[in-house]
């Protein structure tokens, strides 16, 4: 293995490989920062440029772009509450409150450092466990996938501030919205009102932009041009003491491992990884009350996890040729153009490809972190733009981002509608997170629930005969019930003292 790793690192003797790495990281960083674009689109756009290149050079560029773009989503999530990807939603929960407190620099610094740490740690796991863990992931059948989605959904209880009832209402809204579109098994249109544009369900990016960013714009307009908290300038290399950063090591390491493992399971991906890690960190934190109000731990957990999922998604791609995420699915196309078919023989037939990917993930970390730290200084100033101008800029970004996602007006209308809905829901203090969570997981849950029943002659035994399914369902039930119970107990205790 060490010899093969040496081959991987030896690729960096070629200046073209370095160029590809830096170029990929820069492009990814910018693409990720634009809501509506994202890692999948970035990789797809870069592929045509890689045709004439050496396979090693092109794969290094694409991997660097993927990792950096997965990070880039954090920037707008922190600055303007506009997570460009579902994976950055959890980052916005604490990142944006930090910006409102004038701590943009701290939030950005923590986000880039934990992303870097996430990639570094998860790549180590990737090198050691790619093959065995991917084989294990194959044991996930429809029953297990359904149970996994249920675990994701059960986090709603931990993520909804205050009222579990309102959290459940929000989850219901999300699940209802997830039923829009063609029925995946029978092809029958559901709630499409005869409009084919609804066939593929609600497009996620415009919904995200509307619910979070546009509703924020509406709040800004309502608040008017009042005094705004100035963001503290970044003095030295880092915006906050090394000791503070070092204090975040536990959530970062834990979230990196969780993010990697969840990323390995094909279809689970970066968004579930960040939600789960955020929820676990909140549960285990010494200061859970700070989560959602500007906790550096929250930002670190979400970012370490969604970047670790990048390495995780690489595992089944390299070990089996099965992509773990939409972006790695596109990378298969890029590799195929180079005459390399990812599959179970990749390690045997062209070991230079997986080991170069491992090496470039590692070498890419310092490059990405430097770009991120330099960028943080500029972005921290963006946070000081007066509120009316920010509102106008964010609204502009929302509309352009929505249009760019499909190049039609349909997503633009969706975005506007969800902007208004988001505003109303926030006024009613109904949390938005469970809606997004349910929208992302609803389809996965329904599809696998039905696949499980159809493939088991309609018998429910498939949900209680596999040990893995049983364990996952038990975790989901506990995660849902325990917080509700403890809240109920707290309320009773309070009632008694009064």
């Amino acid at each position, binding site marked *: 293995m060490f010899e093969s790793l040496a081959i991987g690192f030896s690729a960096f003797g070629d200046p073209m490989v370095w160029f590809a790495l830096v170029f990929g990281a820069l492009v990814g960083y910018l693409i990720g920062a634009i809501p509506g674009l994202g890692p999948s689109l970035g990789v797809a756009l870069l592929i045509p440029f890689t045709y004439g290149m050496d396979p090693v050079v092109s794969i290094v560029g694409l991997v660097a772009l993927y990792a950096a773009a997965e990070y880039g989503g954090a920037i707008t999530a922190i600055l303007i509450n506009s997570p460009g990807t579902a994976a950055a939603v959890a980052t916005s929960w604490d990142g944006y409150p930090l910006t409102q407190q004038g701590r943009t620099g701290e939030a950005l610094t923590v986000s880039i450092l934990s992303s870097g740490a996430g990639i570094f740690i998860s790549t180590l796991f990737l090198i050691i466990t790619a093959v065995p863990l991917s084989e294990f992931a194959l044991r996930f059948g429809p029953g297990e996938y359904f149970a996994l989605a249920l675990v994701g959904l059960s986090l709603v209880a931990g993520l909804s501030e205050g009222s579990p009832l309102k959290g459940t209402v929000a989850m219901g809204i999300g699940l209802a919205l997830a039923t829009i579109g063609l029925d995946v098994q029978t092809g029958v249109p559901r709630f499409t009102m005869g409009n084919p544009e609804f066939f593929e369900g609600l497009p996620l990016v415009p919904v995200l932009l509307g619910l979070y960013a546009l509703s924020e714009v509406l709040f800004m307009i309502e608040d008017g041009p009042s005094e705004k908290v100035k963001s503290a300038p970044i003095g030295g290399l880092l915006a906050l003491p090394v000791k503070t950063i070092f204090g975040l090591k536990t959530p970062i390491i834990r979230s990196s491992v969780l993010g990697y493992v969840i990323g390995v399971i094909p279809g689970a991906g970066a968004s579930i990884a960040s939600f789960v890690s955020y929820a676990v960190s909140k549960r285990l934190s010494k200061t859970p009350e700070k989560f959602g109000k500007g906790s550096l731990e929250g930002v670190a957990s979400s970012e370490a996890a969604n970047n670790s999922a990048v390495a995780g998604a690489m595992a089944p791609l390299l070990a089996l040729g099965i992509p773990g995420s939409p972006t790695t699915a596109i990378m298969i196309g890029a590799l195929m*153009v180079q005459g390399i078919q990812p*599959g179970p*023989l990749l390690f045997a037939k062209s070991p230079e490809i997986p080991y170069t990917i491992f090496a470039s993930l590692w070498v890419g970390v310092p490059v990405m972190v430097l770009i991120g730290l330099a960028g943080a200084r500029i972005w921290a100033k963006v946070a000081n733009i007066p509120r009316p101008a920010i509102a106008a800029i964010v609204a502009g970004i929302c509309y352009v981002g929505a249009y760019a996602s499909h190049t039609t007006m349909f997503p633009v209308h969706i975005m506007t509608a969800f902007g208004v809905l988001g505003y109303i829901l926030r006024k009613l203090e109904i949390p938005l997170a469970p809606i997004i969570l349910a929208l992302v997981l609803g389809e996965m849950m329904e599809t696998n629930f039905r696949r499980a029943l159809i*493939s088991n002659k309609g018998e429910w035994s498939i949900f209680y005969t596999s040990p893995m399914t049983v364990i996952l369902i038990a975790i989901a039930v506990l995660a849902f019930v325990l917080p509700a119970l403890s809240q109920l107990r707290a309320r009773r205790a309070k009632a008694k003292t009064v």
Partner: protein
Amino acid sequence: MTISNLKKLVLGVAGAAALTLGGVQNAAAGDWAPDAPVNMILHTKPGGGVDVYSRTLAKELEPIIGQSIVVVNAPGGGGATQMAKIRAAKPDGLTLGVNTVTHLTGMQTNLRGTFSPDDFDWIALSQVDPILFFVSKESELNSITDLVELAKANGGAVNIAGFGPVGSMQNIGMAMLEKSAGVTFNWVAHQSTPDIIAAVLGGHMDVGVANLGPALEFFEADRLKGLGVLGDNRLSTLPDMQTFGEQGYDVDTSWLQIRGVFGPKDMPEELQQQIADAIHKAMASESYQTYARASGVQDSDYGPKEYSAFIKQMSSVAEEQLKAAGIIE
């Protein structure tokens, strides 16, 4: 080919005025020379098979036609977003689309009444890709006959994992086998071929359906076994796998996955022929051939006449099969 490329290059340098003049002459000479960039609209998101195909083809087409080609992703509505854009475009060859069998089955089912094959001109077929049925190496099934026997023995409780809902291209392929063998199978819809392969490898599904490309490596690694291919001939890369016909199941072997180019209705016939020629010329290039062979697809040289007839035939097969399955009336 090199000389004609050079000609285009010189033409490009010679400037706009010369190009406009040359455009007419070229049309007479039989070469496609659009006077503006060409939009190639796709019904899928970036990445994936259709996207890679279109971008590879576009890159080779550009030097041949002396114009750039803009690949536009217009996903949504099972192709409706893309087809609406193309139907609304001028029939001047500057707006083209890439189509698969999904367009044809869609026009028979969800998009029936919204779009019909007659709304468009079908210009060139470039890829055909037969579907094949496969199982995991550990499976006891070794042929389509074994599969049919198993379905007979346990009343159709055999899970077949394929791409798309009931009424999709691969589902119709399965329905043809059901009819020919007098059995039923259990269709389990999946949303991507890697998902199908993973489900079969993990033992969650009995049989998978796919085109050769994404499954090839798994055959080479001895993780999957082929049961049969729905086509006229065996696949050269998997010569041991018999066709459905060889095993005694009579199905319509023109039911193939396709990738072709179409455009708005009423394009001049001559222009259509020129576009088709340019596409087939681009397909002869080394980089396209490398890509196509790695993808496991077969090339087609159908121009507008043959492709229109082929589309008509596939549409009627789709209609017939969907009616037989009770999906449409």
